[in-house]
């Protein structure tokens, strides 16, 4: 889970990292009030969005008076953004962070992150910061110092001072910087984060270090022991995530909404990815990604199928199941049977089933009155469902 900037800043302040004075606001009036309370010469008005290039999208604006802050807030709140070529759900600004504008002499970059290839937490630091540092570093790897950390109890140890000295040759800055690196690592460990990223971390004219932007990613698998963060997630998701995706999680199903017209249900993440590839290769376009987890019951699975059946874009459904040691074909067939009976909507259903209890599953489907087209192989199933998705749906209504 990604935290919003204001949430991330609140969290790192608790670890002794200085951020600009600021306040979050959900309306232009609130934003103006916040600015008046702050009483600064210049303000930053920052749309709270979970995307990385807010500057380019003009989601960050500057103002010289509380009235101007309110104007920017009026334009920003409610603004929607298409991200990742429109394949992610649109994101909307619901809140702005009104902050004191910090005058700086230069910008630094500091990040503590999980490096999955190493299986370690690493510190990434540079004497250059600001937007585009990642891209510049890709061309010039020497720009970013990189050092692996070691987790010990509830903190992390590493070459914080050595890296700080490389980044900032001035001793007073280096000491302060090392402390920030250490605190970032502590914040990461204490919150089960996989990323704590300060960019830019600026040096002010009076040689203070201030985190002007902060990004934090929390490991979803650790939320069971971080109840305060689990609560934040509920709050963020209510505003941002696709409702179907959230609903599916409750029913032990990993679900993503996509913009195609073929409903897809598969057991297992790998087989689901492979099925998705196969459908696209055959010229089709899935309306979703669905991985039925091994812990899903037939009632859970019925909810999953109902999401496909009630989606007006769905023209045909492909069920690709390989019954394994934990999820058997008949459980999935039962789920499909329940969903079809509940929804009563008719559309072509192509089924390819193999493995544990495949024969029994066919009987279950027939007993439930589910009409289905069965194919022997995955490829045939994909070809057939793509073909059917391109036909007029009217043929199937009778």
């Amino acid at each position, binding site marked *: 889970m990604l935290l919003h900037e204001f949430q991330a800043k609140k969290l790192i302040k608790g670890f002794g990292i200085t951020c600009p004075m600021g306040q979050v606001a959900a309306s232009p009036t609130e934003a103006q009030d916040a600015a008046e309370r702050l009483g600064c010469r210049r303000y930053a008005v920052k749309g709270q969005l979970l995307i990385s290039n807010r500057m380019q999208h003009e989601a960050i604006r500057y103002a010289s008076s509380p009235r101007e802050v309110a104007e920017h807030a009026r334009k920003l709140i409610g603004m929607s953004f298409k*991200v*990742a070529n429109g*394949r*992610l759900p649109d994101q909307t600004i619901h809140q702005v962070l009104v902050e004191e504008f910090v005058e700086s002499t230069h910008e630094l970059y500091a990040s503590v992150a*999980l490096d*999955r*290839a190493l*299986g*370690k*937490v690493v510190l990434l630091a540079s004497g250059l910061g600001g937007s585009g540092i*990642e891209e510049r570093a*890709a061309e010039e790897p020497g720009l970013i110092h990189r050092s692996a950390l*070691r*987790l010990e109890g509830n903190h992390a140890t590493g070459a914080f001072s050595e890296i700080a000295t490389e980044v900032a040759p001035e001793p007073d800055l280096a000491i302060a910087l090392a402390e920030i690196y250490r605190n970032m690592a502590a914040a*990461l*460990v204490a919150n*089960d984060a*996989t990323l704590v990223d300060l960019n830019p971390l600026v040096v002010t004219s009076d040689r203070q270090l201030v985190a002007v932007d902060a990004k934090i990613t929390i*490991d*979803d*698998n*650790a939320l*069971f*022991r971080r109840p305060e963060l689990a609560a934040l997630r509920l709050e963020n998701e209510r505003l941002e995530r696709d409702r179907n995706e959230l609903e599916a999680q409750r029913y032990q199903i*990993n679900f*993503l909404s*996509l913009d195609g017209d073929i409903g897809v249900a*598969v*057991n*297992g*993440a*790998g*087989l*689901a*990815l*492979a*099925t*998705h*590839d*196969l459908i*696209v*290769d055959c010229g089709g376009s899935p309306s979703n*990604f669905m*991985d039925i987890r*091994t812990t899903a019951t037939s009632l859970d699975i019925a909810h999953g199928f109902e999401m496909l059946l009630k989606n007006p874009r769905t023209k045909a459904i492909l069920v690709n199941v*390989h*019954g*394994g*040691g*934990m999820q058997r074909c008949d459980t999935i067939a039962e789920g499909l049977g329940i969903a079809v009976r509940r929804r009563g909507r008719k559309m072509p259903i192509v089924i390819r089933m*193999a*493995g*544990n209890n495949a024969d029994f599953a066919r009987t279950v489907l027939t007993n439930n009155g589910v009409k289905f087209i069965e194919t022997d*192989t*995955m*490829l045939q199933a994909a070809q057939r469902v793509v073909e059917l998705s391109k036909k007029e749906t009217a043929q199937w209504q009778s």
Partner: protein
Amino acid sequence: MAILISPETKVLCQGMTGRAATFHCGRMQSYGTKLVAGVTPGKGGQRHLDLPVFNTVVEAVEDTGADASLVFVPPSNAASAIIDAIEAELSLVVCVTERVPVLDMVRVRQALEGASTVLIGPNSQGLLAPGIAQLGVMSTVDAKPGRIGIASRSASLTSEIVAQTTEAGLGQSTTVGVGGDPVHGISLAGCVERFIDDPQTDGIIVVGEIGGFEEEEVAKLVGRVRPSKPVVALVTGRHAPPERRMGHAGALATVGSGSAQAKIDALEDAGVIIAPHAGSIGETMRAALN
């Protein structure tokens, strides 16, 4: 013969007294796995599935001579259970638990440094050596002793490919699920290396997906060693939308790395045969062996 396990391997199960563990341990026993003990703190002295239960891994090892463990412990305690097994110097640990916090796995990797233990998982279906032993939760109905080694990031695709290789008349020497999490034990390349050295394995199948760098490691290994046995690979997620998590936590293509196409290109350059789709892997391997 198989990799990582032999007919003599004695296995204990951490968390054996739980409901799901009881079910799967029973299946493993009937498959012929030498299960010798269970470990559940606080239940030492009891008997379960007709086996002794111990409070600690060390006690179980002293009493039974177990040299491998299957970890069936909930996410909150899975990492400490794995570390117990590493400290007891077991040669093989398989963890099937899903949703283990990733920083816990970083600590496990620290514990593995300098240790002799091989860890499989977490979030893995485990290891199956048909006719020899089952250490995990996979289906065994389609498995058949044979000469194909399978290393996979996906449990469901492993079931599929086991069925395909059996159908193609090849069978399997060993199947290993490395697990779907971003930080885990043995890598795909670690498995491939062992399959290359295994005289009982004639062909190797690698199942990869978007995210991470493990397929690139396999490409480097195969490019360097140039094994005489065919290596066939499938990399899924070619059409997965970027920056969205589909299924496995590990299956997220992050900017600039881990795209399925980059992996396919690297593997092809190294001489790995790319299966055109998930339904054709058995046939691709049969053709490669002829």
